[in-house]
């Protein structure tokens, strides 16, 4: 669907291109407080329940990493370098706080350096047990309890059980609407491209929630009347980590591969399950991050589930192949690509593995790889028909 046909879509696409969108500026001007989620596994619902806005940190639009070089080793990934450089330049100075967990050594170092040099007024760190099980849920619940009291103390707010439940319901509503958007992608000619869909999901992490949910409803409405274009060479599922750059998907789509599904941190993995609305809300949030939602390779013992999850996306969204992506220097996704490529081969699903930097440049060779991959899928489809 052309962006000119949907105001909501346009707002999402623009929001994903920048760090500060107009709705966020308004929110800040009215005195709203914003807490930065430094990467993955952080229950945004607790921040919403505190009457503040959770903001998923990015470094979109970063032009270099000069200010990071003195603080990271040469084996740290480009994501943390761009994040820190943006922090040093004040590009994320609208944040009133930052909260993080031990995602990986890179993010861990980012948090330390941020505390040391960027000095966002409120900073909080939680220990995330990277294993799925009852004890781990209890341990993480304890950490979330600590985060709750820390927010209460620092910002003079009261986070009641009722407020937590209300926040969970609100975030579940977002996920439900996003799942509706994903349902549309199963069609032969989906109204939205994969690039637009990822932009819509990234927008959900930086636009105040009430407005975002309203815009999502509007977008779904706009999509009802629309049919997408035909003539794609192949339908693709993308697998990767916390990719926040729709441009990556656009490169695949510009070569003729329609991205219909994904196993991405900002994508399906963030929306397929809801947080349990009954019982103890903090336990439900801990369980959601550790057990309920599709795992990330950071959680021990979930390899088979993760492989199956990707194959399931291929089946559900009628895809012809998988493109997996890894940030250079990310060991977790380096191993993930190897695991996955073997599993996909066993299942007869074509696979292309790509490596990117956080800021996507030098796209020439990537285009060649993607084009050749799509051509080989198209050729195989053609041969099978004859």
């Amino acid at each position, binding site marked *: 669907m052309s962006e000119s046909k949907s105001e909501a879509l346009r707002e999402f696409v623009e929001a994903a291109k920048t760090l500060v969108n107009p709705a966020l500026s308004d929110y800040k001007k009215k005195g709203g407080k914003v807490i930065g989620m430094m990467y993955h596994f952080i229950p945004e619902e607790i921040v919403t329940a505190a009457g503040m806005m959770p903001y998923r940190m990015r470094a979109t639009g970063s032009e270099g990493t000069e200010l990071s070089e003195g603080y990271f080793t040469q084996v740290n990934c480009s994501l943390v370098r761009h994040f820190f450089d943006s922090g040093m330049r004040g590009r994320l100075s609208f944040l009133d706080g930052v909260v993080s967990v031990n995602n990986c050594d890179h993010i861990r170092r980012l948090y330390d350096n941020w505390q040391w040099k960027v000095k966002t007024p409120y900073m909080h760190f939680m220990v995330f047990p990277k294993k799925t099980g009852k004890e781990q849920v209890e341990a993480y619940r304890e950490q979330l309890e600590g985060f709750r009291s820390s927010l209460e103390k620092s910002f003079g707010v009261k986070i009641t059980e009722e407020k937590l439940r209300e926040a969970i319901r609100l975030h579940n509503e977002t996920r439900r609407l996003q799942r509706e958007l994903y349902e549309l992608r199963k069609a032969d000619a989906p109204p939205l491209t994969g690039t637009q869909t990822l932009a819509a999901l990234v927008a959900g992490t930086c636009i105040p929630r009430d407005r975002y949910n309203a815009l999502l409803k509007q977008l779904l409405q706009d999509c009802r009347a629309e049919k997408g274009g035909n003539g794609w060479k192949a339908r693709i599922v993308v697998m990767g980590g916390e990719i926040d750059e729709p441009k990556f998907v656009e490169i695949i789509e510009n070569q003729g591969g329609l991205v219909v599904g994904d196993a991405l941190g900002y994508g399906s993995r963030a929306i397929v399950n809801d947080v349990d609305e009954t019982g103890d809300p903090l336990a439900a949030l801990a369980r959601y991050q550790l057990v309920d939602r599709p795992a990330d390779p950071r959680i021990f013992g979930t390899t088979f589930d993760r492989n199956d999850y990707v194959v399931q996306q291929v089946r559900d969204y009628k895809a012809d192949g998988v493109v997996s992506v890894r940030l250079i220097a990310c060991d977790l996704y380096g191993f993930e690509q190897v695991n996955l490529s073997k599993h996909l081969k066993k299942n007869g699903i074509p696979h292309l593995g790509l*490596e990117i930097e956080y800021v996507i440049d*030098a796209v*020439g*060779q990537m285009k*060649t*790889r993607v*084009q*050749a991959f799509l*051509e*080989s899928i198209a*050729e*195989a489809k053609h*041969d099978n028909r004859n």
Partner: protein
Amino acid sequence: MLVAGVDLGSATGKAVVMKNNRIVSAAVMPATTHPEKTARAVLKTALEKAGIELAEEVKYVVGTGYGRYNVSFVNENISEITCHAKGASWMHPGARTIVDVGGQDCKVISLDEGGRVVEFTMNDKCAAGTGKFFEAMARTLHCSLEEFSELSLKSTAPANITKQCSVFAESEVVTLINSGAEAADIAAGLTDSIARRLQAYVYKVGLLEDVVLTGGCAKNEGLVKALESKLNIKIARLPHSPQLCGALGAALFAEEHFLKNVFA
């Protein structure tokens, strides 16, 4: 009916003109700063060689190589990976592994029995193991690319060069020159270091015979021999210039797709 394939590489432009599945003419020229200009010039040269005056006689043109997106007169563009597979299978039907060493990248392509691309791997941003590397090293040794290849074949004790990075290898070469090493041994050492890199790529997709070498660097017999000794196999020699493989594949697609459109 004439068709053509134009391969716009980083170092050279190549054109192959075909008629009824046979090569009519071909040309190679250094790349200019505009793919469009290179494409027009190289195709014109190929046509002139065959005594064809009117470019209109060419009914369908397929573009490939780095400049493929920016040429106005091509009917479609196809990636060089797919084109090399096509061209190599046509020249050598038993080819199952293609090692393509071009101006700025190297690729290893694995084919099934029908000549279809099964898997491929390719270098990243760095120019190690490519024509650019050989150009820089030939410059350091004050010789042409042809002389470089001949030199490397003369060596009896190849120098041990561990660096594959164009920049660092150059300083290693300067050290060797100043310590009195023979140019032939340095050239052979450099060729060997690139063969090792290519060997790693071949093992990544899996070694299947027959193996063919394509791209401009395949003209370097020293490299062909070095890779043969690394892989411990015989590399099949092609009946036409390996540098034309991409353009040839593009021309073959041009013929197929033109006919498909006519009879569709």
